[in-house]
């Protein structure tokens, strides 16, 4: 645990996070200011956290905030680090980290597609990634209503007879 | 060469089709029983073929069709040349090289048609099939070569006839035991049975060359497969197991030999294609060369029974 402790103290000293915690064994969570993310990632990459496991997002609709979560892993120490930062939900703009982790390009596209967060500097941001031909607000936002979407797009079966009548002809709609 | 030859040839084709397709059905049952299943009906193979012929088909251009016809045509011509229990529709054309190379016409036609579909799986499958062929054919051809040298004949019918009349001891598989083993292993490769079936690996390359065939094209491929099986098993049977003095003996031996390969393949896993090549060039090739040297330099196996 010494490496953990020293890591935490290092992080505290270098990144001055808003708060730190240890959510699980060999995991560190640190909340930083949005504009500190870039520096923190660069610093941690230097410290051996060479892998960006994931970039994801949480929609805190009550606080009107998006929380971006970067999870890094160090193959030398075996430690995961979460970096969390909250940005304004109404103006969901953030800078890309592809200059530090080129692989973040696809994570950012994903977050953009599902939450609508825009990462300035990512060239491919507006290309579709998962959702083919999506035509509504980003689906993982809390204010998106999947039931309504499903009802509007995918007809429900109303009763058993409808299916039975299908083989007789498709003119019942 | 007159009209009767062609009539005989046609009858041979029909008979071979019925016989081999039935046998294939029975062997499906055998495989099922090996796997503790009940298995398909014995005539299931006929149903499958006729069902395929019945269905609509899709074509990817003229070479796709032409290749199929060429394949089946070449294979059927080869079937006509195979001597069965001393009977040949066209006497004297049963040269072993003619048969093995005419067989290649069919394979080339199939490969052409498959690659003509434009599907990369088909090309990969063909590439593997050809590699497989290169693997099994060399040891087998060395043994056959030895046999031709030893008996001064390249005629399949004559070679078969020479082994008859001495019971089991007359069989080349017994006279040349290593060669016999090589032949059976090569037969597995020729038939595309496990462990040498990586070229039609259904789950990996979507059944390889067959990937784009449906309907009558697929039916043709199944008929082709039956004929090809007949040619390959007959070749080994005639050359190594003495053919048959009568048609019944021939059929019986044939059924036993074919079922034997099915049983072996029923309990085998699958070689990767390069593993298959390595295997054939290690064990069977060495055995074939040893057998060849023994026969050529000592005459052992050729003369001691004479």
């Amino acid at each position, binding site marked *: 645990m010494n490496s953990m402790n020293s890591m935490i103290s290092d992080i505290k000293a270098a990144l001055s996070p808003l708060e730190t915690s240890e959510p699980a064994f060999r995991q560190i969570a640190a909340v930083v200011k949005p504009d500190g993310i870039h520096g923190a990632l660069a610093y941690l990459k230097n410290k051996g956290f060479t892998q960006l496991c994931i970039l994801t997002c949480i929609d805190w609709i009550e606080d009107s905030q998006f929380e971006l979560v970067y999870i890094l892993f160090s193959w030398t120490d075996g430690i995961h680090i979460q970096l969390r930062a909250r940005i304004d939900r109404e103006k969901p703009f953030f800078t890309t980290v592809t200059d530090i982790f080129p692989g973040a390009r696809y994570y950012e596209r994903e977050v953009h597609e599902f939450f609508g967060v825009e990462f300035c500097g990512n060239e491919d941001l507006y290309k579709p990634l998962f959702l083919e031909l999506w035509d509504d607000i980003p689906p993982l936002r809390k204010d998106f209503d999947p039931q309504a979407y499903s009802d509007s797009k995918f007809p429900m079966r109303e009763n058993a007879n409808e299916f039975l009548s299908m083989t007789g002809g498709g003119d019942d709609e | *060469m007159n009209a009767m030859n062609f009539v005989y*040839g046609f009858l041979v*084709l029909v008979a071979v089709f019925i016989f081999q397709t039935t046998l294939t059905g029975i062997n499906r049952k055998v495989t099922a029983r090996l796997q503790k299943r009940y298995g398909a009906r014995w005539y299931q193979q006929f149903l499958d073929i006729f069902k395929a012929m019945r269905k*609509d*088909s*899709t*074509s*990817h*251009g003229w070479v796709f*069709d032409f290749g*199929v*016809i*060429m*394949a*089946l*045509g070449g294979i*059927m*011509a080869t*079937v*006509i040349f195979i001597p069965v229990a001393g009977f040949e529709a*066209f006497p004297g*054309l049963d*040269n072993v*090289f*003619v048969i093995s*190379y*005419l067989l*290649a*016409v069919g394979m080339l036609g199939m490969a*052409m048609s498959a*690659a*003509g*579909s*434009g599907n*990369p*799986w088909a*090309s990969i499958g063909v*590439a593997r099939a050809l590699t497989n*062929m*290169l693997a099994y*054919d*060399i040891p087998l*051809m*060395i043994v056959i070569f*030895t046999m*031709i*040298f030893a008996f001064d*004949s*390249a*005629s399949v019918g004559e070679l078969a006839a020479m082994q008859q009349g001495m019971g089991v001891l007359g069989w080349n598989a017994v006279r040349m035991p290593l060669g016999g083993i090589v032949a059976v292993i090569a037969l597995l490769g020729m038939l595309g049975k496990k462990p040498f079936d990586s070229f039609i690996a259904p789950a990996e390359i*979507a059944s390889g060359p067959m*990937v784009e065939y449906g*309907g*009558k094209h697929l*039916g*043709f491929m199944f008929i082709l497969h039956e004929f090809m099986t007949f040619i390959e098993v007959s070749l080994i049977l005639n050359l190594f197991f003495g053919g048959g003095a009568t048609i019944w003996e021939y059929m019986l031996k044939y059924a036993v030999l074919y079922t034997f390969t099915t049983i072996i393949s029923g309990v085998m896993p699958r070689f990767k*294609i*390069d593993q298959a*090549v*390595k295997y054939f060039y290690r064990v069977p090739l060495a055995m074939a060369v040893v057998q060849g040297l023994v026969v050529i330099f000592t005459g052992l196996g050729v003369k001691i029974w004479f």
Partner: protein
Amino acid sequence: MSIAVFLAILIILAAASFFVTAANKKAGGFATVAVSLFALAMVLSMKGSVGGEQSFMYLGFSITTVGWYFSVVMLTAYSMTSFFNPFWMKKMIYPAGYNFLYLVSMAGTIGMFFAGDFITLFIFWETVVWSSAFIIQQGKSRKASYVYYVLSAVGSMATLFAIMLAYSVSGTFVIRDAFTGLAGSPGTALVVFLAFILSGLSKMGIFPFHVWLPEAHGSAPHTFSPVLSGGLVKMGAFIAFLSVTAFPAYEIFGDMLKIMGIPAPIYFLMLLGALSIIIGTLMAIKQEDAKRLLAYSSVANGGYILIGILMLDQVGFAGGMMHLMNHALASAAAFLAIAAVAYRTGTTKMSEMGGMIHRMPVTYLVYLISIISMAGIPPMGGFVSKWLVFQGLADKGLLFIAAAAFFGSIGSFMYVFRPLSAVFLGQLFTRDKDVREVGFFMMFPMVVLTLLTLAAGVFPNIILRVVTEIQKSAGIEPVTLARNTIVTTNGFLDAFRVFIVFGFGFAIAFVLFIVRRKSRKVGLMDTYTSAEFIHTPELLHYSHSFYAPFERLYDKAPDTMNMYKKISAGIAELGGLVEAVFYGGKPAKTIFWIMAAGMVFFLAGGVFR
């Protein structure tokens, strides 16, 4: 017309074509067509005058059946290929020079085949070598021409050595007399035999001289590769023929160690042939360029021809002699087909093309039939000749050579299929959507060669009759021919009946096919892709590293080219050393060496007198 006059006319016509081309490129191309067809007609008409001896100044000619046969093979390749010339003139850097050298090398081959003595043989041999070397450099690679020339030179120099050695022993240059004079001294005879056949080996691309074929065939102008592969390589076969017939190798080496009845030196050469079959096959399988692939296939087929000729028996020899005709026809046609494709698409890289069958069906059929013949599949000519070679090998029990022959034969299915699949079958690339079939004038030679290949397979006895005459003149028992049948001790082959039965099978299959319902036509891109949408044909075409799993098995095998590179580097290194030691520009050093030489003189004069 005497040979000398004939050759002189050809040379004059070659010069004329030079000036015609200088005036009008296309007309010059047509001039080569006319001249080569004229030469072919002349040679064909010479069949009657076989047996004559002629001389002109210091050149001596002798018209033999075998010379006639080789000339016909050669001129078929030349004349058919020349039909392509007019259309490629604009791509040549020296069109006039190309046409001139094309015809000069053609004349050279005729002179060589009809040579009556070694000096004539050598003169024309070298004429062909340098003229073709200067043609090859007009293609894609200068290095190819260099490699070609150097390896040819290895052979030429060895041959010259052999000629002079034979001359010094027997005192004549006349081919048969010079060799028979060696009968008394087997040691010298062995040296002469090996040195003489070396040029044949290097020309035929027998291991270890095979490295020039892929370079030269692959990089020569597209209109010259067919000649190289279909024609010039056969010059080596001629040398091999002379080595075993004019040089009575079997008699002279009769007392030596025999392996399966073959004298050891000949068996050794056969092993080299077998090795080239294996190497040619393996290398052809892994080529990415269609022309290089065909070049390696020529290496393998050269092995068959060599083995067949060296057997010098009733059957195998006939097979070897016939195979050189069959291979010339098939390989010229295959190279022409690739040239036709390159004419339309501008590339010969297999991974850059696909689906040409939908745009160039005739070219496809030409290529198909020629490769079927090369792979030795009935009913094409290549099958008959390979069959004869196999029969001959089986007769003699040459196990290892037969194993190599089988390997090459089965392996050829692999490499001939590859361009078929990659270039002609598969997906049609977007870039080639508007490609058209080549015009009639280029299609004509391809179709003629294809029909000849087919004819050779269905009526092989037409060619084999000439071969029997050659066998008679070489003093061996000719292969037995019935009306349609070739008879050997191990069985017989009736190619015509095989063809008919094949047709019968095909007819049944065809009837079966058309009685069933017509199929639905779908596009090439509408294929099973595990249900994924793919819109780019280039991505749906499997052609790169076609036999990757198999290639992996031998990708670490040593490359013969490296050996030559090492030799070349060694000579250069020695040169560098010499330069530094003797020519460094420091007088003191030179004087030191003078003194050293002085010491040697003193020692020579005083000590080792």
